Structures are given as C-alpha cells and as structure tokens.
C-alpha cells in the first residue's frame, strides 16, 4: 500500500472519529490543530486505525507519535 492510499484511509478515519465534515490531510495535523482530538478520542483513533489496517501498535510506538505523519510512517512500515 502506498503512502497516498494510507493517508486517504487515515483521513476517512479521522473524519469519523473526530466528527469532521471534511479534512485536508497534512502530515503536520495533530491534537494541537483539531479541537475534538483529546486523550480519549486519541485512543479511539489509534484503535480504529489498528482495526482498519489489521495490526496493533506497541505502547512505545504510540508514545512516539507527535503528528499524523508519524502515524502514517508507522502504518507504512507495518504494512510494507
């Protein structure tokens, strides 16, 4: 799966979890930019991504995500 496909799917999941009508994806998106992104919806987001892509992140990986781009990189590595 290429990076563009991954970001497309991640964008869809973000719209669902953060209840957004539309979202312009960028690697720099983070909890600082999206109002609905709090500690609880963060966990929902991670779990939704795991379900959709079919693997689980480790706690260390999750702790290393500071922006969406980091998460997408990790997905790309897991699904490569």
């Amino acid at each position: 799966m290429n990076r563009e496909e991954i970001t497309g799917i991640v964008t869809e999941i973000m719209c669902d979890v953060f209840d957004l009508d539309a979202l312009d994806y960028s690697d720099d998106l983070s909890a600082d930019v999206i109002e609905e992104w709090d500690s609880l919806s963060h966990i929902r987001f991670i779990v939704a991504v795991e379900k959709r892509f079919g693997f689980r992140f480790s706690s260390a990986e999750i702790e290393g995500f500071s922006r969406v781009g980091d998460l997408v990189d990790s997905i790309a590595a897991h699904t490569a």
Partner: protein
Amino acid sequence: MRDPFGLPWLLAAPTDFRSRLKAIRSAEPFDAAALRLLVQTALDATQLEQASRLVTAHGDDLTGAGLRPLRLAIVATHTAKGIAYALPAAGLRHGLLIGTDLADYGQTAQQLLDPGSTIAQGRPDAVLLALDPQALGLARPCLDRAEAEATVTRALDYVAALREGGRAHVGAAVIVQTLVPPLESLFGNFDGQLAGTVRWLIDTFNTRLRAAVVGSGDLLLDTAFIAATVGLAQWHDARLWHDAKLPFALDAVPLYVDRLCTLLAAFRGLARKCLVLDLDNTLWGGIIGDDGIDGILLGQGSGTGEAHLAVQAFALDLRARGVVLAVCSKNEDAAARLPFTGHSEMLLREEHIAAFLANWTDKAQNLRAIAATLNIGTDALVFLDDNPAERAQVRRELPEVAVPEVGSNPADFVRILGQAGYFEAVSFGDEDRGRAAMYSANAERAAVLGKVSNLDDYHRSLEMVCTIAPFDEAGRARIAQLANKSNQFNLTTRRYTEADIAALAADPTRFTMQVRLADRFGDNGMISVVVFACGAEEWRCETWLMSCRVLGRRVEEAVLAHVATAARAAGATRLAGEYIPSAKNAMVREHFGKLGFTKVAEREDGDTEWTLDLTRYVAPTLPMILD
C-alpha cells in the same frame, strides 16, 4: 449473529450514521423521534459519544417527549470518561435522559464520604462505583489463607463504607460492580482452588459482594458476568490499561453502557412487562394453517423442533418470574389454538397466555389491543417474531415496542432474547411470582363483567378484600417498584428509592399507606401507594398512585375513608391534594373532584389544588371487606 459486543438484539448501525446524525443536528424543530430511532441501533463507542452530545444538547426537548431524567455520578479508580460520554445515547435507548457527573480521578473516598463534595452537591439519583482490583488490593496474590481472607474482607469493608457514604452523604443508591477476573493464571487450573490467587480473591470478593447487596436498596452491575459473555481475552486490553487506565477494551464500551442502562431503567421502573409471541415459525416450526397439527415441527426428533421448544421453555420461565405472555399471530383463531390444546409436545398452554390475538389484522394494531387488554403501555411490550417484515412493520408503527432482531434461525431466538435484558429486575418478590397469573385472572374478571348487568352486581360478585397498612420493611421493595413504575394513575409522579421509602416509614410527620386487593379470582397484591404529610389542621397528599389493573374497583374511595378516619382521629379538619400533570397522567386530572374534594386553585401549567372538609365528609358503603 454478532457477538455480544455488537449488541446482536439490535439492528446494525446504519452505514450512513454520520449523515443521519448531521441531518438531526441541523433539523428545525428538533426531531426527537429520529434520534431515538438512531440510538435503537448497535452504535459503537465513537457513534455513541457523537449521538450523546446531541442528547445532552436537547435535554429539554427530550424531557418534553416523556423521557425519565436521571442524574448519575461516576466515582471511579480508572478513566471513566469514555463511559460517561457514551451514556446519554445509551440511556435514550432505554427511555432515560442521563446526565453524568464524573468525580476527579482517584477521589473515590473523598467524594462519597464528604457531604460537601462536588458529587454530593450534584444530588445524583445514583452513584456508579467503578473500582478496580488494583484499588481494592486484589490485583496481586497473597498465598496465605488467613491473609487472603482478611484481604477480601478489607476490600468488602471499604466498599461497604463507600456504600454507606453514598446513602448518608449523597442520598443516592450506589451501584457496585463485580470484578472481572484476569485472563492470566498463576498456577493454571489450581488458581481456583488455592486461597489467595488473584482468581480466588476476585471470585471470593464477587460472591460475598453479591450477597451483601441483596435487599439493601443498592444495585449490582455484574460486570464479571458481562465480561464472561464475550470472554476475558476480548474484554481485557492490557495496553489500554497501561497507557490510559481504561478498564476494558474500547469494543466493550457499547455493551457495558447498555447493561448499565438496562439496570438503571429497571431501577426507574422502566423494564418491560409483557412478551408477545408470534406462533408460526416462532413457537413451532411450520405453518399450522397449512401443515396441520401433525405437520408442525415441535420437540423431539428434530433440531428445529427442539429449538422451538426451547423458545417455549424460556417463555414459561419468564412467566414464572412475572413476565406476562401474550400471543399475536396472523392466523384463524381456531387453527392458532389447536396446538395449545392438541399437541403433546406443547409446553405453553392457553392458560399461560393472558391475551391471545390470532386474526388477519396488522400486528401493530393487535399489539395496541394487547396492551389495552392488559392495561399496560405499548412501551411495556417485547415482540418476538421470526418474520423480518412483521418486525419492520411493528418498529415503524410502534417504535416504543422492543423488537429483538432474532434473525431467522430458531436456535438463536432464546439466545438473543435472553441477552437483550428487556425484563431486567432489581428485586424479586411474591408480587412478581404471581403477576402473570394475576393478569390471566384479570381476563376472567373481564368475562364476568360481560355477564352481570350492572357495576354494583359486578363489584359484589368479585368478593373483594382490601387491606390497608402503613409502609413496612416487607413491602419496601414493592412500594419503590410501584412508585417508579406507575405513570397513569399517579397524581404527583414523585419517584422514591427504597431508601426514601424507608425514611418515609420512619417519619412521624408522614401517614403512609400500602394497599392490597384480593378477590375471588386471586390476589392482586399491592396495588396502591399513598403518602400524606400530617399537619395540625391539614393533611396534605404528597403521593397517590394506583395500579391501573384495579381501576373502577372503588379502591380509591376505600383509601380516602381510611386516611380521613386517621386524620380526624389526629384532630385535623381537612385534607388537601395536588394534581401535577405529566405526559401520562391525564386520567387522574379529576381524581380529587370525583372523591368530593373542592378545587381551590388552578395554575397555568395545569397544576390544580384541592381540599376536602373533614367535618362534612361521610365515608361511603363499599362493596368490599376492609381489612
């Protein structure tokens, strides 16, 4: 069939959930019906939270639509935000408008033991106590029997102190929970035998907790059982616990909050009362009208027949615990009744069915007729039918009727019906044991009414015995049950918990009455609850409610005569009463007037005030023995 996490008795969440939610969000005026329909589907945790925001934003509209408000405080030793955020939507599914107060993380004891705490100040109706094995000292083994016993006792003492605090300082019923055992073993099979393993500590704690809560007025959410229905491997999520102190997997949230709301609904008297059964391909396999008595599949010799027999057995078990059974079938009446009298494998008999409707009218209309016959609301019905078209018709016409999504395989029917929690109860007493028979007796009374020429003759023919007594401990659970369930014949619609009832019984400024009625067809049990506040001159009615199944039996006149006698003896000169209108109690608008009270005030909201001059009141002669 979905696993229990997916709430398989509900329709699946619509694929266009978000656009539906958006439509509801922007609709003017607010579309309460659309939102209620949406929450009747199996929403996931994220969807519940999004729907919950709408529920909370439109609390006033929903109260107007007849939902029962309930304030729930959550006191937890883990992150409970996800539960709090999902509850309003799950509550709406069960007729409750839930507002939550979440105590600060780790403030368990302070919040319940301090009358000045934010939780106590919020005056909740119930407090959910969400404790973990870690917080109770039960998460690590201690392999010394005496020490293990002492550890469990300490944990239970702590819970008991918090429950007492909830009662004394917060004035609310406390919901305690059993603990979910860990997935991991220390020894393996031996864990259950050896005192002090975590499994032993938790099992022992759970057993003793269940026993401690019975009859206390507090409630038990059996989380260990809820987890067992899906399995420990699915329930526990170690990473979420370590990362965020979430007590269980995210996927468990919808099931957990639904079970909690089922319990809260039962606490508020909103559990269902009647199971309405389809016949063909539900109670037996095949079509009685086509296949005949020898052609239908029922019982021995066929898997399908066994599955249908299991449905009958489950219905009978429900009846034995007080659920009323009815039949609603598209059939000729004679054909429909044939298996009940002529099939040797049938477990259900005609006498078990309180209302039997077999005709060609549509099912929604028949369900209305069944509810009317039994004198209950359509919102007390559960409708079991194998036919998806019939289910859809009933859901469309009567969204308040519970229609389990049982699929088409009869082997799944009991499993899905029995998981849904429609008939949840927080107590079980003699009233419940006899209820189904009582409703059948009512049908017989109606038949007698058809034969006698006037009401007085009918009343005399019933040989009624009316017993009026003050509140006591034996009646407490049933009094609270009636106070929470009665909507129609209820002058003020004040709700009381068992603790409130106990307080009223002990209060010398209150005159309380629990009223029972028996007749030659059977004992109706406790059917009326009345509370008067006793002043020097005036006794004022705070609560007057009655079960609709004894309407028109002149019980209210007997009650009035009883309270008038007591008030006079205490030196009072008048009785006062108030009618507070609700969405459901129009039938008692003229209650006090009919009893001879004079209307003294009427407010714009329909609230009326009445008084009765005791110096001029004469008790009537009543067609019953007063005991």
